[in-house]
């Protein structure tokens, strides 16, 4: 059997070069747009001054991107070269990229370019109105200075807060979502209506929900009134709580009820504050319905024959739930847990609207801190530092979700 002679590799000069050049130019243009320079009216209102500034501060940035652009350009040129000979493949490739072009342009400019800018800036001190100055890893180090200097512990405290948030909210919202989905899963009258009503809180914006809850949480609000009436049923008196202004931590209150005291220097033993937990409740309220819907859909995919077989073997509902339902839901549970974690580690809206980080910084979150530092809300603008914090947060989120995915996948291996 003779081997087919391979087709001679042709070099299509024009298309390859055009591809390379156009991709290189576009990427470089996006880079220049995103180039880290000083801001302010003098720079923004004159192209010449802008380019001067680019020359002054953004050349390393552009150089690195140029290299990347060249590589991508080469890869693209090679690919075009490969498909150019084959008319069908050529047509499909060109159509494919034409269809993808809007997405690629938008993402490259507004996501990738921006992320690269943020990364570059995180190694600088940048307050917008002066040129960025290189500081290496100083911003990253600064974030963790709280370990040695307790006056610089804002970021650590923010991380502490969202970790508690994640640990409490994710399991609770997953559990509640599953329970509600199971409850709704039986065929019955009005199922649609209940489903719709349950989902309503997730539909409105976080601003609306937060405002309503701030009002409900007032010292003279409905939540206190509710507790008042419940306590009243047992003849006890309820002291109204200023929910969103109470900095006492969960563990701290337990310890104090038992007669102990956690000194203020060991604030990290105190647990989430009442205010913070109040925000958690509000958040769970809005996220459970969304996850409930996902679980409902997954439940409907489970073959009812499984349940029939199990019940004939005498399995109790409880056993069926834990041995059939839960394992079959594992992929959705995994998704919900991962989405939940990503969401809880980035809490911002509620803090901005309700507590602004208080009381006593017990509701401070990394994203809120980033916002404060980047816009100079409580001091000078520290955009470099804010970018570093953002990347640290990104890494933490990535690690968390990676571990979670692994952990849940391991659990499903049995099946």
């Amino acid at each position, binding site marked *: 059997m003779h081997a087919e002679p391979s087709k001679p590799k042709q070099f299509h000069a024009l298309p390859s070069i055009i591809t390379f050049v156009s991709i290189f130019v576009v990427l470089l243009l996006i880079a220049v747009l995103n180039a880290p320079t000083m801001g302010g009216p003098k720079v923004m209102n004159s192209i010449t001054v802008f380019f001067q500034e680019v020359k002054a501060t953004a050349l390393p940035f552009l150089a690195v991107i140029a290299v990347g652009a060249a590589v991508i350009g080469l890869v693209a040129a090679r690919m075009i070269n490969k498909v150019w000979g084959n008319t069908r493949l050529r047509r499909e490739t060109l159509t494919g990229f034409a269809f993808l072009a809007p997405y690629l342009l938008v993402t490259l400019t507004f996501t990738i370019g921006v992320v690269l800018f943020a990364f570059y800036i995180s190694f600088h001190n940048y*307050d917008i109105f002066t040129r960025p100055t290189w500081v290496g890893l100083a911003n990253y180090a600064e974030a963790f200075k709280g370990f040695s200097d307790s006056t610089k512990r804002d970021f650590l405290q923010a991380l502490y807060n969202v970790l508690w948030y994640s640990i409490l909210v994710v399991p609770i919202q997953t559990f509640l979502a599953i329970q509600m989905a199971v409850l709704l899963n039986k065929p019955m009258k009005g199922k649609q209506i209940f489903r719709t009503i349950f989902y309503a809180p997730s539909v409105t914006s976080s601003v609306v929900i937060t405002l309503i809850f701030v009002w409900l949480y007032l010292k003279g609000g409905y939540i206190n009134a509710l507790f008042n009436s419940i306590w009243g049923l047992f003849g006890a008196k309820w002291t*109204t709580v200023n929910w969103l*202004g109470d900095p006492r931590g969960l563990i701290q209150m337990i310890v104090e009820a038992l007669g102990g005291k956690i000194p*203020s220097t060991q604030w990290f033993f105190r647990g989430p504050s009442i205010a913070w937990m109040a925000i958690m409740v509000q958040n769970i309220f809005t996220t459970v319905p969304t996850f409930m819907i996902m679980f409902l859909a997954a439940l409907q995919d489970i073959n009812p024959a499984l349940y029939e077989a199990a019940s004939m073997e005498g399995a109790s509902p409880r056993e069926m739930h834990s041995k059939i339902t839960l394992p079959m839901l594992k992929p959705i549970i995994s998704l919900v847990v991962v989405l939940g974690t990503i969401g809880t580690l980035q809490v911002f809206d509620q803090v901005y609207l309700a507590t602004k980080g208080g009381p006593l910084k017990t509701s401070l979150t990394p994203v809120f801190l980033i916002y404060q530092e980047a816009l*100079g809300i409580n*001091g*000078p603008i520290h955009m470099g530092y804010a970018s570093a914090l953002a990347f640290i947060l990104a890494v933490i989120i990535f690690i968390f979700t990676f571990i979670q995915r692994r952990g849940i996948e391991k659990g499903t291996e049995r099946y």
Partner: protein
Amino acid sequence: MKRTLTVVSLILVLSMILAACATPAAAPTAAPGVEPTKAPAVEPTKAPAAEPTKPEPAAGTCPIEVEPNATITFSGWGDESEQAVYKATIERFKAVCPTVTVNYSPIPADFQTKLKAQMAGGTAPDVFYVDDQLMTAFAPTEQIMALDDFMAQAKVTREDFIPALMTIFTQNGKTYALPKDWGTLGLVYLPEVFKEVGIAEPTDKWTWEDVRTAAKKISEGGKYGGFCMGADWARFSPFATSYGNAFVSKDLKTATLDTPEVLAAAQFVADMFKEKSLVRAADVSASWCGEAIGKKLVGMTTEGGWMVNTMKTTFADVEWKALPIPSGPKNQSDIIFTNGIGVNASSKFPKASAAFVIYATGRDNQAEIVKTGFAYSTHPDQADLIVDPNDKAIAQGGLLPDTIVAYWGPNTGKINDAVSQALDRIFLGDQDVATAFKQAQAEAQTALDSK
């Protein structure tokens, strides 16, 4: 798909119709003046529905020579009463500098953030309010103009203004904004509470000790709280300064929160809280101490000129009186909240902009503003123009020689927060005075040392 489109277009059409028909409205009433938030970026006293006054026949000439056909934009914060005041200012300015057109575009919320955004993007207005946050953001890099040359041309000097007010707006000896108004705290009390408890009403010679004694007597009755105060750096500042020290040294390099004077003042406040002669607003179920007075829940508190409007609009039938701030062992001193107006360094019409700033903060205009009851004049010699007697009494605090503006440089907010949080921890019983202020001192020093 079609259905979606129809519904969506219906909504769009409906909203457009509504937009066309919406009556240009009766603006809703302003919120009661809440106590000042951290930065001196605080609203001064609110006017009882100020009418834009008719422009006076050109009493003066334009402060400085301006560019021909200048058009400038002017931006600030504030509710309708404040906006009315500045609309009137613009009218008066037009009479004096007729060739300048001023476009007023107030930004009611998130002013500092928006202005920084605009400045970064090169679209900031020519003239705008400047508070400590914006001074920090713009002055070091000269995004706002130094006004000294223009002031010289207009024959205006720094000494024309109340000295304490100029501290925020000065950098390297140069003036970057001129103060547009200011507020301060005074002792506010309810005569009927004093009558009921049977003690003499406060006088303007009172000390904090007198306040404490009276508050104790009032609270013993069980019906009223004695003296209302929150864990608030602004309310604490008069205590500290009257005991002899401010939060930060005069050279703005060292925090002074662990000095004996400040600690003594803090201990005084802590003792008052412990013996329950001092209560927080939340302790009497009010959202701020002004409301506690209006609802007759406490006998005394320290509040500012905004009480005039609050009491008039929300608690009209409650009789109240105000006196200058009480004195402490070392002196009688108060805290001042102020904001200024500055000029964008990239303004195309710097002279016209400077002229507006100088006019708006000048004696003629300030006198008009005082007459509306909106704010106090920034010129010390105009203090007697204040109409309301309570307002006048409160304002006295601002003219005292040891009165300060709580401005400590770029990180003022953090330092003030450290003080508020220390007080919070003391009130919670979490830390004693020494520990709380030791922590505040460390935090404040870190803030001072950082860039």
